[in-house]
């Protein structure tokens, strides 16, 4: 069997750049590693270009371990775009903390590779490898600031929970293998199709439960979400953004791959459970966020809530549902990374990460405050922003798919979410600056400025001219087996 490496070119470039960076950072002094970040960014750009050029390709590669199809292409592009924004906006932050930029970017690129592999996987072994690549590097990234006790704590908590979830996932996967005798996802689908007819159907459901639980952990759905706030708060800010945009997306991709495609014969079972999960997740995420004082922790709960919204699209189990999920993920990446970019940029300028520290920002730094307001409006789902169009898609899918009650849940939750998103906005514009607030410094580095601009333009363009993106998401939402 010839092994086709051509179709995984982007991943090779990405992983290669990552490894190169590790190598280079061993030879370059920490203070002078900024250029290494540009190398990393270049690597991402090349990967992005390659995957764009390759976007029409369909077929399996790597001996049937990965499959290129619209949806995996979509995820690949999405993750690369997210990684790009993280890389651009995180640079100043990472550098300012006196750690090895090269190592950070190396890990970032490799973790992205893992995420992409999860989306591409056409075999559960590859899925597992991608997942572990992403996870293990994420544990390191979470604890990357070795001198920072919060970062340590984020690392250890994420690690312990993540390892446990991996074990649970593997247990479920082993059962699937036992039931079907194969590790290939289409093979599993076929095998399960036979198994659910026979006496082993309960075992299939058992496997579904394990796998869904473990992936729910990855996307931080309630009640599997508890690691998220601690990790987001403790982890380096750019990585927290990465968690929200890429890691969760990878979880969603894995759900679509293994649950929606591989376990498609059980689709009558999981829709309603995902719906319950969605309702629980958005509600708990939102109400808990109401009490947060740390901005990053708030964003963690926000991402929990957003995952709840996204799960609405999955619960519908229709192509419209998947399409709306993809659109949402794409839109979400810009808004959430935008927020983290602002947090990072301000943090570099010496501002604290508590919401109270944002008081009076509207007068100290109106541009930053304006951008943050835009992202917040998008997270709430107010028109002209991507968030509105994304929510429109979800509601549309759930209404057309017969989940109107879930849409109503979403409505109530949107209103609750105003409570905390707008708390930040209120602090920025309605409150005076606290004593000793950091004075305005408008200038940011070119990289951070570019990253912020990408996020803001993304939010606005998707919000105002969403058609292309809808078409893109719809095209990508075709999944085999549905």
């Amino acid at each position, binding site marked *: 069997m010839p092994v086709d490496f051509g179709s995984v070119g982007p991943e090779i470039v990405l992983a290669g750049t990552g490894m190169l960076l590790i190598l280079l950072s061993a030879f370059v002094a920490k203070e002078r590693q900024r250029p290494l970040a540009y190398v990393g960014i270049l690597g991402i750009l090349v990967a992005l270009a390659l995957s764009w050029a390759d976007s029409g390709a369909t077929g399996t590669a790597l001996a049937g371990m990965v499959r290129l199809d619209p949806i995996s292409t979509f995820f690949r592009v999405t993750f690369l775009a997210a990684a790009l924004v993280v890389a651009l906006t995180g640079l100043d932050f990472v550098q300012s903390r006196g750690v090895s930029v090269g190592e950070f970017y190396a890990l970032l690129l490799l973790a992205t590779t893992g995420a992409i592999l999860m989306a591409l996987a056409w075999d559960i072994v590859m899925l597992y490898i991608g997942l572990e690549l992403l996870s293990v590097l994420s544990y390191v990234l979470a604890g990357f600031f070795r001198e920072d006790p919060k970062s340590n704590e984020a690392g250890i908590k994420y690690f312990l929970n993540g390892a446990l979830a991996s074990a649970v996932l593997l247990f479920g996967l082993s059962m699937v293998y036992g039931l079907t005798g194969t590790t290939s996802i289409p093979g599993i689908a076929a095998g399960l199709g036979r198994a659910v007819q026979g006496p082993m159907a309960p075992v299939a459901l058992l496997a579904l439960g394990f796998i869904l639980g473990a992936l729910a952990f990855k996307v931080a759905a309630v009640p599997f979400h508890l690691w998220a706030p601690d990790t987001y708060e403790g982890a380096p800010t750019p990585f927290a953004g990465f968690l929200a945009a890429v890691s969760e997306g990878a979880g969603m991709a894995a759900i679509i791959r293994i649950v929606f495609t591989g376990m498609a014969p059980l689709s009558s079972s999981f829709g309603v459970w995902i719906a319950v999960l969605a309702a629980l997740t958005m509600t708990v995420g939102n109400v808990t966020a109401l009490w947060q004082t740390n901005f990053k922790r708030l964003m963690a709960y926000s991402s929990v809530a957003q995952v709840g919204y996204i799960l609405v699209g999955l619960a519908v189990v229709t192509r419209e549902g998947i399409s709306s999920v993809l659109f949402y993920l794409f839109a979400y990446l810009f808004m959430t990374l935008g927020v983290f970019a602002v947090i990072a940029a301000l943090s570099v300028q010496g501002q604290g990460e508590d919401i109270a520290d944002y008081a009076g920002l*509207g*007068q100290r730094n*109106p541009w930053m405050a304006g951008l943050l307001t835009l992202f917040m*409006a998008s997270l*709430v*789902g*107010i*028109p*002209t922003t991507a968030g*509105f169009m994304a*929510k*429109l898609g979800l*509601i*549309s899918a759930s*209404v*057309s798919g017969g989940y*109107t009650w879930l*849409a*109503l849940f*979403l*409505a*109530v939750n*949107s*209103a609750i979410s*105003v*409570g905390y998103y*707008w708390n930040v906005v*209120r602090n920025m*514009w*309605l409150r005076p600056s606290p004593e000793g607030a950091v004075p305005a410094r408008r200038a940011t580095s070119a990289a951070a400025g570019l990253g912020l601009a990408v996020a803001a333009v993304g939010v606005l363009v998707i919000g105002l*001219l*969403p*058609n292309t993106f*809808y*078409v893109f998401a*719809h095209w990508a939402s075709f999944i085999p087996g549905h």
Partner: protein
Amino acid sequence: MLSVAVFLPLFGALVLLFVPEAQRRAVRAIALVFLSLSALAVLLIAIGFHAGQGLQFVEDVPWMPALHVNYFLAVDGLSLVMLGLTALLGLIAAIAAHGITERTKLFFILFLLLQTALLGIFCAEDLILFMFFFDVMLIPMYFMIGIWGSGRREYSAVKFLIYTIIGSVVMLIGILALYFHTGQQTFSIPELARLVASRRLPVVWEDWIFLAIVAGFLIKLGIVPLHTWLPDAYVDAPIPASLILAGVMSKVGAYGLLRVSQYLLPSAAQHFAALLAVLGVITIVYGALAATAQHDFKKLVAFSSVSHMGFVLLGIAAGTQLAITGAIFEMVSHGLVVGMLFLLVGVIYERTHTRELSRFGGMYASLGSGGGILGFAAMANLGLPALSGFIGEFFVLAGAFTVFRTEVFWAILGIVLIAGYNLWMLQKILMGPEREEWKGLPAINGRELVTLVPLMALCVLLGLFPNSIIHVLHLPVQQLVAHLGGQ
């Protein structure tokens, strides 16, 4: 032409971004110029408008073809009237924003944004575009209340925001359900209206969809028991924002009822007509009673506004040509009257720094012609004939009489109460012995008169020659009534 009118203010806002904050006069002047230009565009549209035709000035281009959403703007008589009101009150509110001396630039940027959203709502003929504008207006209003407001401004602002968002998301669900259940892959209001005749929707669905859509509009309209955001927002907002809130934004709810729920879901509208009528009457009486018990001038005006919106709802629910025409007239008239009242609240507050009614007294002489204008406004508010408010209420109730007789009799109780609190307010503020502390207050000045006199003049003109706007309403109302299957 329509897009020009709608987006001129937004363009102004973009221009303002690059004007330095310190140039307060320039900021204000630029804002006024753009608002005037937009008003001029509306005027040109009005001149070019033919009362005998349906939708005019149509701009219909695909916007999100994948979702069958179009950028579809057009005006009919109803839109035109609302556009006129919006343009006028926008201009007046901007003049009245003279007192905004802090963060002026931000204020006018938000104000212009708001104006674009409001103008957009009234000529959007695509449901998603409508929702788009409907939600966009929240943000500037939030900031206007939150930053330049008074009292519990933060609470009021966020309450306003949360209330309206929940309403609008529920409405969005309703609109999407409508879309999917018609199965025609269009959000265009005229298209959907054409489908109404074939009655494709299952009845149960239509009812639920109707309720979802109406909920959002009733919140906006401030109908009891969904009104509680309204007094807080009206009272704590700065005067120009209160003016827009009460004068234009609350009309969005009524406009939505006419344009969307009643028009596209006529059989559900008939199912729930009695419910809406009862809600309308409750609102009239409840609002009037609550207004009677207020000690705060602005709060009184706020509850009065609630009460008047009850008439609008009653008229819309009745669904007869007379009642609906009356309701629309009442919307316009209330916009003018409540505008005057909020401006006068501002005039008095600026001089006395209080809104406590019990602290006023004998101010007729000290306000110059302001006292007379307040009297005029109160009389207009209580529906004195020959002023515009009368025509609206009269035809709402005359038209509703055939349909909802009992409700009309209850509404009549409201009319008495409305007279009661208005007179009581006049008595408290203008009459009685002159208080020592208010002696020598500056009389009403030219800038304030510039804002008030056009409203007064229009109030009289519309009261004497109501046909001037009713003749353009003829066709849209007739279409609506025909949909509803009524007279």
